[in-house]
């Protein structure tokens, strides 16, 4: 099975939302700042629950925040 990648637009979305800090996003999505950092750097793929929580913080659908790439 080919390795798939999950990309995200977290950094761009944070800046579009009043330059939200990583800590703010972490607090609002119930995770740590280090996890937000790891997500932005593509070193961690979140669970579905966390992905939904993050999308909800931005008021977007999950596919507007995360992108599945073959």
């Amino acid at each position, binding site marked *: 099975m080919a390795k798939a990648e999950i990309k995200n637009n977290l950094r761009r979305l944070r800046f579009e939302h009043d330059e939200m800090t990583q800590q703010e996003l972490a607090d609002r999505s*119930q995770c740590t700042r280090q996890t937000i950092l790891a997500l932005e750097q593509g070193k*961690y793929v979140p669970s579905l629950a966390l992905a939904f929580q993050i999308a909800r913080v931005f008021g977007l659908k999950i596919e507007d925040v995360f992108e599945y790439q073959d």
Partner: protein
Amino acid sequence: MTRLQKRSLLDLIISAVFLAGLTAVFFSGGGAETYVQDTTRKILVAALLALGYILLFFVMFLVRLKSKDKAIFMDERDERIVRQAMGTAFTVFAIYVFLMCIGLYEAYSTSEVMPVGWMWFLAYSSGFIAILSRAIATLILYTRMSGHGES
């Protein structure tokens, strides 16, 4: 550095120091053959063990992963790292016990009598090996699943 990383780093230092100390004392003055009869060495090693485990417990208490003010110190990523590190530690522990048993069997298979001191060494060193490997695995997994950047 997260609290779990701090705890793992302290666990790594303590377990490495006490494992080295325990091994040095055990192998000094005749090793396993004379260990059971040597009261001084037994007391020294028992003191080392007790101090090591007390320190590890103290670290666990000092670097708590839960907070009264509901601040998040551990999330799903940390939990995933803990699970993977525990799996790695178990594998290392199993390999260590297997290699020690096979090594002792090979070393004493011709004499048919093995000093019982080896059983003591295997029991206590394996405890520190498990803690040490868990700490190393945790720190490695953190470097793979994290980065450094803005706050």
